[in-house]
Structure formats: C-alpha cells, structure tokens
C-alpha cells in the first residue's frame, strides 16, 4: 500500500515536471515562462514532500525536504517578482534610449 502511494505521488510530480517543461517550450515570452517555474516548484515539489514523509516517516531527511520545498516556493515568489520587474523595466529603458 505504501509503495503504491509513493508511486502515485512520484507519478504526479513527474507529470507536473513534464507539463511545466512542455509549457516552457510552448510559451513565447520570458514573463509567461516564469509561470512554468512556479508550476513545477509547487506541482512537483509538494508531491515529493508527501512521498518523502510516506517513505521515511518524520525523519530529519523528510523535514529537510519540507524546508527545501518551502524555500523553493518562497524564494521562487521573490525571484519571480524581481525577474518580472527586470524584464518589464529593460524594454522601457531601451525605449528611452532610442
């Protein structure tokens, strides 16, 4: 039963990663592509955290993976904001120079 649950969770994470990368290829602008990064961090990260807790129980490794997922989501939000701002300001600066 435990192995089946882990397999399903890993399958979900894999599906999210493939979907995110497919979207990354399909979307044209860098701003659109930022959404794919967040999608993978949330869609693949959370099932892996749950799979780690199912496999390991409340071990140090499982809690570190939980910390990793939280850091990736929090840092991802900050980075998406910073990168999005940079991408928006850059064309504006180029327009002013012309």
């Amino acid at each position, binding site marked *: 039963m435990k192995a089946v649950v882990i397999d399903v969770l890993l399958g979900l994470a894999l599906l999210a990663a493939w979907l995110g990368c497919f979207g990354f290829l399909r979307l044209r602008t860098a701003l659109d592509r930022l959404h794919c990064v967040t999608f993978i961090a949330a869609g693949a990260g959370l099932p892996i955290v749950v799979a780690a807790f199912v496999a390991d129980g409340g071990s140090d490794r499982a809690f570190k993976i939980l910390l990793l997922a939280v850091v*990736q989501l929090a840092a991802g939000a900050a980075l998406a904001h910073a990168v999005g701002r*940079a991408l928006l300001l850059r064309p504006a600066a180029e327009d002013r120079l012309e």
Partner: protein
Amino acid sequence: MSDWLAVVLALLPPLAVPVWIAASGRTADRLVAMQLASTLTGLIMVLMSFAFDLPSLIDLSLTLAFLSLPGALLLAQFLERWL
C-alpha cells in the same frame, strides 16, 4: 531499478529543456531557464537521495536552493541595469 531512480531518469529530458534554452535563447529567457534548471536540479537531488540512500544529498539540495536566491537576484539586477 527502484522507482525513485526511474523518476530521476525520467526527469533528465525535462532538465534538458532549460539547459538548451539557457545555451541558445535570448538573455531574458536564459535567466528564466536558469531558474527552472535550479528548481529541477533541487528536485532531482532529493530523488537521488532516496534512490541511492544518501541522506547527505539533501544538504546539497538545500544549499543549492539557498544560494540560487541571491544568485538569481543579482542576475536580475544586472539584466535590469546593464545587460
């Protein structure tokens, strides 16, 4: 081959996408591709920790996550001002 290792191998083709974009895309796309590659690499290292039964790999993954934040912020600043 364990399930964890199979998922690690299955995540390598998605990792090739940001690597390819980072090598050949426009500057803005390269920055976003670097973020995606960093996220995917962190997840792959977590899975490798279970596949090879190496708990210390999680520390490496955490280090990557913590270091990618200031690195990407600096690159975003460079992109905004100078690149």
